[in-house]
């Protein structure tokens, strides 16, 4: 085998670089779910918490197509049999009225930047 030392040195560098994120995080604090501000004026969301936590993004995506393109404005909840208006600003933000203390908390922690608010208006004020 030619250049054995160079190949193994290269492999070692490769393994170290590839596993850097793992051993770099050893010892650092585990992911802590941010403490969110709970709505004061209502008890339950349109669906249960687990579903909302995992599916709210695709739900909002479906809502927007159904409202804008098909004109279907009512959402029939699967958990509470209640009917809600499919609207980010008129339904979600009526309870979760503080975007900074609700939406942004998780989004910032997991470093995602949804572009909802490029157009939709945060009722607590528009950043100019």
């Amino acid at each position, binding site marked *: 085998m030619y250049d054995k030392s160079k190949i193994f040195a290269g492999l070692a560098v490769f393994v170290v670089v590839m596993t850097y994120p793992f051993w770099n995080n050893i010892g650092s604090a585990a992911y802590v779910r941010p403490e969110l501000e709970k709505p004061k004026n209502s008890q339950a969301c349109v669906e249960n918490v687990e579903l909302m936590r995992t599916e709210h993004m695709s739900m909002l995506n479906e809502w*927007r197509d159904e409202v*804008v*393109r*098909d*004109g*279907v*404005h*009512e959402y029939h909840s699967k958990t509470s049999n209640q009917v809600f208006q499919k609207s980010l*600003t*008129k339904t979600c*933000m009526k309870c979760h009225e503080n975007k900074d203390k609700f939406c942004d908390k998780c989004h910032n922690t997991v470093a995602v930047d949804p*572009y909802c608010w*490029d*157009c*939709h*208006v*945060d*009722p607590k004020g*528009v*950043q*100019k």
Partner: protein
Amino acid sequence: MKTIRRNFLKVAAVAALGWGIRPAAQLFASGGAEPSEGLLLASRHAVHSGPNALKAGRWAMVIDTAKLNEQNMAEIVRVCHSIHNVPAISGPQEIKWIWETKMDHLFLDDLHEFQPEAAAKTALALCNHCDNPPCVRVCPTKATFQREDGIVMMDFHRCIGCRYCMAGCPYGSRSFNFMDPRPYIESTTPEFPTRTKGVVEKCEFCAERLAEGKMPACVEVSDGAVVFGDLADPESEVRKLLAERFSIRRSPTLGTKPCVYYLV
């Protein structure tokens, strides 16, 4: 042997060509739910309106030019632009949903220079919500589409800002956001979204208000100068006005079948 292979190849080529053309020919003949739809005519989106929504077979608007004056036109424009978060930008990058303009700019074919003194000099222009909308046909992403009740809607989420629709619209009803509009909005209405840079916008016949059972904002503040209703219903106010009074539309010879009528 040679001639036989030659003939076989010829037949195969013609057959392949035929198969290639077939789907396209079908598309041209009928692509949508109705035989009249297809590539040459826009397909239409069904509207499932809620219990409180105002419904119609074909929404249309009638503008009485005699009842318009400086004050009510300015008020209509102000109300429309404020509830829809339309930014106030002056110059060539202006954004407008409804605006006051000269009659001879509105009606290029129908007016001559010997109009009566008392006739209206200006009127309101807005999206005509055409029955055969060129903007819908040219949109590559179907961001603009036509509903079954005739409203030509914008899906701002889907607009990629190619501005084909602006080239297609013969009425100049569409505006493009050359920059972030938010700094130019005086007071933002939280219920309605703003737009973002690189998106085209226009009047939507207040589709969001119709869904809540409200008439379009311009109709509400116009004091009877702007009438809105169902063109498919012979008893509707718009049909009665059109039957009683002489009305014209903007550039009907273009074949777009505009649905905003002007009483002159």
